[in-house]
């Protein structure tokens, strides 16, 4: 099993969620994060002080899928999250040993 973790633009969440449920994913977990990358930030001005703000609001979406689903998940996320402009974000995939559903104790694919 794998976790597909995507850093996306915040307003793309609904579309990404829809794309994922479209390929049969039933659950995911979202975290508010700040991203630093090639996308330029903006300048904030507070009276005398000007600050270059380089950390931009992003969302991290984590979805656990069976290994054979990874490609489809990546395609779904890429399709939904892409605006074509710098800062669209990244997808990282990492392996997990195990998954457990707390309520039932089911494990692995049954836990999803």
């Amino acid at each position: 099993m794998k976790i597909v973790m995507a850093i996306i633009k915040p307003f793309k969440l609904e579309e990404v969620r829809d794309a994922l449920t479209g390929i049969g994913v039933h659950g995911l977990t979202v975290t508010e994060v700040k991203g630093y990358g090639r996308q330029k930030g903006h300048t904030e001005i507070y009276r005398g002080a000007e600050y270059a703000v380089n950390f931009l609001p992003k969302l991290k979406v984590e979805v656990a899928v069976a290994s054979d689903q990874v490609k489809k998940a990546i395609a779904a996320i890429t399709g939904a999250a892409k605006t074509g402009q710098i800062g669209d974000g990244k997808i990282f995939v990492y392996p997990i040993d195990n998954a457990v559903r707390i309520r039932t104790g089911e494990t692995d694919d049954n836990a999803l």
Partner: protein
Amino acid sequence: MTSKNWLRAGLPALLTAMIAVAPALAAEGPKIDKGDTAWMMTATVLVLCMTIPGLALFYGGLVRSKNMLSMLLQVFYTECIVLLIWVLYGYSLTFTAGSGISADFIGGFSRAFLAGIAPDTPAATFTVGVAIPEGVYVMFQMTFAAITAALILGSLAERTKFSAIALFMPLWITFVYFPIAHMVWYWSGPDAIDAAAKVLAAATDSAVKAKAQEALDAVLADGGYLYKAGAIDFAGGTVVHINSGIAGLVGCLLVGKRIGYGREVMPPHSLTMTMIGACLLWFGWFGFNAGSNLEAAGSAVVAFLNTFIATAACAMSWMFAEWIVKGKPTVLGAVSGAVAGLVAVTPASGFSGAMGALVLGLVAGVVCFFFCTTIKNAFKYDDSLDVFGVHCIGGIVGALGTGILVNPALGGTGIFDYTINKVAEYDLVAQMIAQSKAVVITLLWSGIGSAILYKIVDILVGLRVRSDAEREGLDINDHGERAYNM
């Protein structure tokens, strides 16, 4: 006043002497009572509080946090710029006599830069012989102009350029607000009418009588168009609420819907702020309505009481309607109802009885609830913060309701006729025609005028922000700041 009454009643022996000095007395003109001055200063500061921070927070809480500052600054800017225009020429255009054919619609420049207003220059109230310092009248009315303009911002929220707002507001206040306020509220005042009427009454010779009648007619003709049409609007149902409400609707249609409207979740970022704002609106509205009486007298107390009752009734009406229809009573419903009640009672506040105000509030709550939910959803316009549904519709309910509730038979005060020095006969049909006329003319003038001004602004600086700026939020893009850094 107390002591004057006391003297009148208690010292008949002096009355003869008093008659002898009557001319001296008359020459002195209306009197200023410190109780009135104290109350009008208080009322003014209360109305200021309605707009900043009241309205700013009420609206600000309803937008997404990325647009919070843009809402706050737009309201704050509007307050400041309208205030400055008011003292430069707005007060004069609104509350002085105009000239020629336009006099029914707009005043002149005799008070521009507040020229001629000394600390103790008197301004008329609604009572013969009672005045307040003109300076406080200037300020009180100033706060009305400011809030009216600021109300519009709710329709344009979350997508309109700050530079467009900065340009639109001075134009709108000049070409839409000043004329409408002049039409509804400008008149020659009770003392002039009373004096002319007394001369007429005292006239015995028919030539003198004719001349006196002519003089009285001239005094009565010195007023705004809708005032003369007999429309009554105690504190601004037409001038403030219908006016801003229709300007808002036109604006939201021209600016277009927010990106994602109807698809994305756009919950209020802080209903806490909206609640604070609503409470401050109510708080300040006592100044707005009871201050509109211009005197700290029993008649102000009437307006004050109605401002309590209609508001509470309307808040409950909306809240229970929502509870029944949608299954849950909400904070936003209750406070929207309170604001709708305040709007509806505004024109009626000094005219209605207490139970009339209660009924008015109950009706307004259901009507506005229906508009902001069912009707708006059906037409799918993006009046972001429901300026039309609450202020324009609530204002219409109030303006028409005032025509009914002023009826003394329903506990209303009736309309005082200064020429005969008593309450006039009530005539439902005539009154409703006058009220409807005021509603329609306000809708047309403000609707068309605003549309033209939006177009001009669109051509000059553009109304709408770029779509990525809208996505990112107006705060960062227009102002380079964020509201919260927790």
